[in-house]
C-alpha cells in the first residue's frame, strides 16, 4: 500500500536558520496520529513542508493529496460568505480558472458539510458561527478535496472541552478512511485518543503507538524538561 504521506530525510530552513533536520515519517490511511512537541519544535513547518509551502533543504515528500487546517487563522470571518461558500473556496483550483462551480462541485461541498455535521447550517453567514463550528467549516473545506491525509495544526486552540471532544470524535471518524495528523499540546488526550504519536523537536525523536512510548527519557528530550517535570507525572511515566 502506498503511504498517505511519506517524508524521507526532510530538512527545511526558515529565515536562514535550520528548523527541521532528517525528518522521516510515514502516515497511512486508517491512522490518527498526534504530532507532539514544544512551541517552536517545527510542527507547523513540518505540515507546511508536506504541503509544499516551505522549500525543502533536502529530502523528499510524497503524498497523494493533503488537506490542511492551518493554525494561523487568516480566515476573514466577517467576510459576507455563507458556510457553503467558504467550503466551496477549497475547490477553487479544481473548478478551474474562468469557470463557475457545477452541480457536482456543490454536491461534494454538501457531502463534506454533512460529514462535519454542519449540513443544517450551510446557508448561515460564517460570521454567525461558534468557535467549534468555525473549526468544522475549516475541516470541511479541507475534506472537500478528498485528501489522502488531513493535516490539523493545533485545532483545539481557544475551544472549550465539549467542542474539543466533538472535534476529536469527528477526527477519529475521518481517520477511518484517511490518514490524520494533528499537532496538539494536549498530551494526555493525544495519548488517549490517537493511534500513534510522533514526538518532534527539530527532528523526529520517537514515534509509535502510545503504549510503546513509555520511556521518560524521550519525553524529556522532546520537551527539554527535567526528571521532576509535571509533564511526566501527568503522562503517568514516573511515580507521583
Amino acid at each position, binding site marked *: 500500500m502506498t503511504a498517505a504521506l511519506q517524508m524521507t530525510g526532510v530538512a527545511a530552513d526558515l529565515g536562514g536558520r535550520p528548523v527541521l533536520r532528517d525528518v522521516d515519517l510515514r502516515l497511512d490511511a486508517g491512522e490518527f496520529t498526534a504530532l507532539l512537541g514544544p512551541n517552536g519544535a517545527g510542527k507547523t513547518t513540518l505540515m507546511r513542508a508536506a*504541503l509544499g*509551502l516551505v522549500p525543502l533543504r533536502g529530502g523528499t515528500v510524497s503524498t497523494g493529496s493533503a488537506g490542511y487546517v492551518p493554525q*494561523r487563522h*487568516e480566515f*476573514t470571518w466577517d467576510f*459576507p460568505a455563507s458556510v457553503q*461558500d467558504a467550503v466551496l473556496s477549497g475547490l*477553487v483550483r479544481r*473548478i478551474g*480558472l474562468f469557470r463557475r462551480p457545477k452541480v457536482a462541485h456543490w454536491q461534494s461541498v454538501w457531502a463534506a458539510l454533512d460529514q462535519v455535521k454542519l449540513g443544517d447550517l450551510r446557508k448561515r453567514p460564517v460570521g454567525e458561527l461558534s468557535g467549534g463550528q468555525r473549526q468544522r467549516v475549516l475541516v470541511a473545506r479541507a475534506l472537500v478535496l478528498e485528501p489522502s491525509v488531513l493535516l490539523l495544526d493545533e485545532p483545539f486552540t481557544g475551544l472549550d472541552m465539549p467542542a474539543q471532544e466533538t472535534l476529536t470524535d469527528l477526527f477519529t471518524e475521518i481517520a477511518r478512511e484517511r490518514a490524520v495528523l494533528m499537532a496538539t499540546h494536549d498530551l494526555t488526550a493525544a495519548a488517549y485518543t490517537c493511534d500513534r504519536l510522533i514526538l518532534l523537536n527539530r527532528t523526529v525523536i520517537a514515534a509509535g503507538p502510545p503504549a510503546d512510548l513509555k520511556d521518560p527519557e524521550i519525553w524529556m528530550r522532546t520537551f527539554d524538561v527535567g526528571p521532576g517535570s509535571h509533564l511526566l507525572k501527568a503522562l503517568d511515566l514516573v511515580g507521583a
Partner: protein
Amino acid sequence: MSPWQFLADLTNPDLAFLPKALTIAVLSAIMCGVVGCYVVLRGMAFIGDAVAHAVFPGLAIAFLFSGSLVLGGTIAGIVTALLVTVFAQNRRLKEDSVIGIFFVAAFALGIVIISRAPGYAGSLQQFLFGSITGIPDRDLYVVGGTTIAVLLTVFLLHKEFVAVTLDREMARALGLRVFWLDLMLYVLVTLAVVMAVQTIGNILVLALLVTPAATARLLTDRLPAMMALAPAIGAGCALIGLYLSWSWDLPVGGTIVLTLTGAFLLAHLLAPRHGLVARLAT
C-alpha cells in the same frame, strides 16, 4: 433647480461638458463600487489612498506636456500598484508606514512638477478637488473601455479573488498564485481610481472607493448582493451629487462625497439586521 431643468441642461448642446462629466462620474463610480468591495473586505483602504496620491505626479507630467491625463495617471498608478504588491508580500515590513512615506513623497513630487506649469494654482485646485469642465471626448471612450475591462476581469477572476480574500494561507496551500492575484486587484483599484480622479479629485476619490462598498456591506451578508449594491449606490450618489452641485453651484467632488456619506449614515441607521434602528427595536 428642478430635476427637469437639470435634464434640459444635460441635453443642451451649449453645455456639452455636463453629460460628459455625468457619464464619467457614473462609470467611475460603478468601477469604484465593484472594486471597492474587495478593498473594504480586505481592509486595504490604504492601497486606494496610496494609488490616489501616487497618480498625481503622472497627472502633473501629462498636464505639463499637454499629454493625456488618463494615460499619465494610469502609468503612474500601475507602477504604484506593482510597488505596493512587492512591498505587501514581505510581511516583515511595516507596509503602511513604508507606503505612507513613499506615496506622500510621490504627491510632493507632483506638486513640485505642476508648479512649473503656467497658472499653476488653478490647475492644482482642479486636480485636488475635481472639475467637470475640460474633459476631452477621447476620455469618454477610454473610461467606457476601462469600465468594461475592469468589470469583465472582476467577473472572470471572482472566485480566485474571493479565495485569496477569505484566507491567504489556504489560497497559497491550494496553489493559487497569490502574488499575481494581488497585483491584478491593485491594478483594478488603480484603474478605477485614475478614471475617477478627474471629476472627483485626488483627495476625495478614496470615498468613492470605500463608502459605497461599506454602505452595501451594512445592507447585506451576501457578496453577490454587496457587489451589485455598491456600484448602484455609487452611481446613484454620483448622479444626485452632480445634480446638487449643478443646481447650487457647489464643488462637484465634495458634493458627491457628501451625498455618499449621507447614504452611508442612512444605511447605518436603517440596515435591516445590523442597523441602529433594527438593534434598538429588538
